[in-house]
């Protein structure tokens, strides 16, 4: 642990002095700018249990609340039948309710105005497209006041998401009833559904295309490149997360989470970070194969 911490600090010095001579674990062209990459998981077993992979996201957000780094977190809680719903959470214990990935659309950003209206500083967790939206709102805050109070953005890796009806259709085609679902995951190239009877149902990710939200087809961001910190599972050992730390604030927060025993870390060598690069690259190229690649604006003077 000490060793890794030192590594963390050492990395920071490296970027500060700009003597970035060493091998970078990930190509910024593919995963966006970053400061460090770590493998992490929550130390609290309860969080790991509830969390999707290592529970890093939940632990880190809870830590941000505990430390007073933010007053509120916008996250996605699970409603009946796995339907997600965004919620503003101020109690670190309540974050457990938001843990776990929900594979349908949760318009987290829709609560940002309310969160900013009620709190002095806010964190938001979301898919890459949601993080992009928040960044845009910060740069062009046409209708959203006080966006500088967004103190932390946590992005989760994402290949695609599903409209709820399509998720139901997908499960139906897998012969699974939504109410029997214990857990869903996208892992190792497969969409895996674990039912309450302990059985595993899988579909290759390749076949998900016709169920996924069409807008995802031309999304090129796998790792939430504009987030303060991005969390994913691919490339990490089971029960662990890949953590891409991108900004100084996030780095400080992650460091303090490690120092306070909220997160534990592992040497990135133990994971397979190439996979992160591969999926990022896939997502950047798949747009060319999407049906939207031929999309052309309608214009009265131009024949369709």
């Amino acid at each position, binding site marked *: 642990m000490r060793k890794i911490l030192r590594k963390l600090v050492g990395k920071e010095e490296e970027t500060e002095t700009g003597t970035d001579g060493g091998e970078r674990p990930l190509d910024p062209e593919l995963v966006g700018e970053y400061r460090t990459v770590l493998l992490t998981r929550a130390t609290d077993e309860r969080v790991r249990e509830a969390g999707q992979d290592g529970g890093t996201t939940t632990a880190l957000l809870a830590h941000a609340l505990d430390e007073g780094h933010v007053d509120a977190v916008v996250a996605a809680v699970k409603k009946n039948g796995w339907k997600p719903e965004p919620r*503003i959470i101020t109690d670190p214990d309540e974050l457990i309710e938001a843990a776990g990935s929900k594979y349908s659309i949760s318009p987290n950003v829709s609560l940002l*105005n*309310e969160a900013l*209206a*009620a709190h*002095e500083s806010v964190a938001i967790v979301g898919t890459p497209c949601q993080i992009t939206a928040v960044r845009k709102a910060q740069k062009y805050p046409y*209708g959203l*006041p006080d966006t500088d109070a967004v103190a932390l953005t946590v992005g989760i890796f994402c290949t695609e998401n599903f409209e709820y009806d399509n998720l139901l259709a997908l499960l139906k085609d897998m012969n699974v009833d939504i109410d029997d679902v214990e857990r869903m995951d996208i892992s190792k190239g497969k969409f895996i559904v674990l039912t309450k009877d302990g059985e595993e149902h899988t579909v290759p990710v390749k076949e998900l295309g016709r169920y996924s939200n069409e807008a995802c087809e031309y999304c090129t961001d796998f790792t939430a490149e504009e987030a303060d910190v991005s969390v994913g599972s691919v490339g990490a050992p089971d029960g662990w997360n890949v953590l891409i730390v991108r900004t100084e604030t996030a780095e400080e927060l992650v460091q303090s989470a490690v120092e306070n025993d909220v997160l534990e870390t592992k040497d990135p060598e133990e994971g397979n970070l190439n996979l992160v690069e591969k999926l990022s690259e896939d997502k950047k190229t798949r747009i060319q194969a999407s049906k939207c690649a031929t999309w052309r604006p309608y214009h009265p003077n131009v024949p369709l």
Partner: protein
Amino acid sequence: MEIKTVRIPTGTPGDIHAVMEVSDGVIVNAEVCSSTTPLAWETLVLEKHPEFAIVAAERVCAGCDASAGLAVAEAIENALEVQVPDAATEAREALNAANTVRSHATSLLKSDLDLDADALYTVIKAAKKVLHALGRKPDHPPAITPGGLELETIPTAKVENAAKEALETAEKIKDDTASAVDDLKDEIQAEMNVETYGEPGYKADLTPDDVEIVPPDEFYRMKSALELANNHVALVDGNPTLVGPQARKNLTDHPLDAYTAKAEEIVESLEKIAETSENLDPNADVKTDVEYTSGEGHAAVEAPEGTLLVTIKLRNDRVDEALMVTPSNVKAAVAGRVLKDLEEEHAPTVIKALGLSGRCLTH
């Protein structure tokens, strides 16, 4: 004797004109009107959904936006005989108070008094925080809806802090304003001998029966005023009447006391906001369901610039008839009297102090 028409910049949207009969530099007779193109809120909302009437009322004039929205919402509720939860009324009161703070501070910034702009912006920021917290946006707060406020929880802590933090600055503004007004009073000799209407607080008990709305051709006697005027004026109990901060604070010796009253109301409104939010339960219910039926209702609210009256008739979920009497409608009737016997050169300062907006006047 000479008749002069001057456009008076008030810092508010729209145009205000004073038509004055001047003799030896002294105003003998005057009429105040607006040539602004009417938004015609009353026509605009016809056959529209009641919610639209609120959204549109907030966009009549930025000065009283939240209060106008509140007045329409309350009129709709009265038409439908909807009882809003107590917490909603309290929160609305705080919202109206925040609107007053913002509007008054803006008007002090625009006044001819030399005041500390940083201090005024400090209270404006606080007011915006409250408007954002209780109204969901700092401008034209959209949380106002028939049945209460569209809020999941009431961010009482943030509201309370914002109000308390600004109080000290507000006290300073109050003292600065009082002395600045005193200095200016030495220069401008004026008297106000007018009827007043208005009490401190949120709701007013003005009813449509108390108000007479006079079209321009019946009110304006001077030809130039008649040619310019696009606005109606309103009489209260048959008389030209002063509404607004001066009337509410009973400070009617001198027109410039409008600023004194505004500065005092800034402090009181902040205190009101702090007190309300202290007593509010953040999880209290602030919205009742509304079922749209037919009916007619009215409501009056003490908006920053004065009493604002709305009458609305609904036919299911459509607006059948609407009427709005704004603070400027009422004050325009009295403005001519205030100018009387005043030295001509002081007319702009005095009219500006009166707090008229061309947009509000023509709505």
